[in-house]
């Protein structure tokens, strides 16, 4: 029973926290100046990237339905996967559509 549960070492946690904090700083540095033309595409593109939660959703949906809690978990996982996929597919496509319009300059 106990062996089935994950464990975490302080080293791994500290590494994860470092990654977390440094990524926040990186995010601020990356796009300090954005022209207004790109505000909407940046937002929808960034939103599509936040759909990375799809990776967690894939794992969450991959639970054998054996009745009771496990089938509940699987059901929630599938719903999570569907929403994350909408986020990813819809987000990147609609950003691409917008950017294609911006490309047109003088007719």
């Amino acid at each position, binding site marked *: 029973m106990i062996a089935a549960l994950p464990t975490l*070492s302080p080293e791994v946690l500290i590494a994860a926290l470092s990654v977390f904090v440094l990524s926040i700083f990186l995010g601020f540095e990356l796009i300090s100046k954005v022209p207004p033309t790109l505000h909407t595409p940046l937002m929808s593109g960034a*939103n599509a990237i936040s759909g990375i939660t799809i990776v967690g959703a894939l794992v969450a949906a991959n639970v*054998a339905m054996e009745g009771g809690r496990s089938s509940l978990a699987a059901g929630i996982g599938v719903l999570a996967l569907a929403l994350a996929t909408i986020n990813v597919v819809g987000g990147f496509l609609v950003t691409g559509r917008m950017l294609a319009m911006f490309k047109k300059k003088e007719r």
Partner: protein
Amino acid sequence: MDSITHLADLGYLVAAALFILGIKGLGSPRTAVRGNQLGAAGMFLAVLITVVQMQAEAGDAGVQWGLVGLGLAAGGAVGLLMAKRVEMTGMPELVALLNGFGGAASSLVGLAELVRLAPEMAAADGGDPVPGYALWRAVFLVGVGASSLIGWTTLTGSVVAMLKLSGKWNDKLALPGGNAVKALLLAGAVVSAAMLLGDPASTTWLIALTATSCLLGVAFVAPIGGADMPVVISFLNSLSGVAASATGFVVGNNALIISGSLVGAAGLILTGIMCKAMNRPFKDVMFKAYGAAAGSGGTGEKRTARGYEADEAAMTFDGARLAIVVPGYGMAVSQAQHVVREIADELEANGTEVRYAIHPVAGRMPGHMNVLLAEANVPYDKLYELDDINSAFSECDVALVVGANDTVNPAAHTDPSGPLGGMPILDVEKARTTIIVKRSLSPGYAGVDNDLFYRSSTMMLFGDGKKKLTELLAALKEL
């Protein structure tokens, strides 16, 4: 099995690098298309790695391809339809909704993991724990609490924002109690999450956490009005990233932590830009509804502004060298962007230079006007930012204001202590003639009467933006 995990982690690192390059690319016009493609490539890679790893590590039960396929196919089809079908005028609603879905997905992943592991955790808590279990347990449960709180708030907040944007929200639905209720809901969610830390298998606290978080999103966005929407939408965008980051701690995946933080930071930067453009501190947007602050709402005196006909307005363009179009939310509502372009074409054919002045918070989301004008084939080099165009108004013969109000209200200069005081505005009052297309004299979102409407150099064209501009176009062609 270990080496598979390590390889997968390296692959996720590549995906994260692609996201970083993608977001960087999206920050500049020349590289934006490539940036979006890099982001999509990173996402494809991340999904591929996960699926391969699932297959490689599957025990006797194998991968649940039915369930996984169902989620991917259903989500993919809906996402594709939404992206293909949406009109550019519906873009703010779509962006809001996608933010919400992202937040909900992050919450649901945490929820599914908790539901799956809670029985085993309850058993382990009673027995002799293996080393490292206690730390994992704490991080896992704090992560679940954070992703639930932020994710559900993002979902319901986004749905309310979407309903408000599409005019389907009933303003009477605002929760009573204002900020005290928000604080209470937030405290309730934090307490519920803390109780789950004590008893992960408790259904009661799980439901309490979900319910308070959902209500919190409604309580936050419901009192926030139209013109503050660009701030709200970019903030929700940021939250959807933070939720993904929290979920990264739940499932122990660095790709989620990195990309979630990047998006969180990007959203916050946009939020800051929007607040600055309105000269409104972020806390005012969140905790002080404009209407309440502007209690004065019109000084009681009734002034009348003269309405003009389209052909009178058309004459002012005769011989004009420079005309500046100032679009606002009204252009989006009446979908007048195409007529605006046709008028610009007609003016340019007559030798008038046409520029567009874009206020950063014009419309209901960051960059709203840019998207609409791009849809109408206006080249983006004719769109000018506030700082770059303001000096040109004094040389401009005609300023054509289409459905904008607060962003051109001189009260920002003349009444520094008023609700609009200090907000950077487009100085259309300096133009020789200002034509304002607007449905009525009603004050803008800030509740401040606009002095510009009553000036002698102003011509008001009362009516629906598209209808009035079509008349103006016809009159210009007859000139």
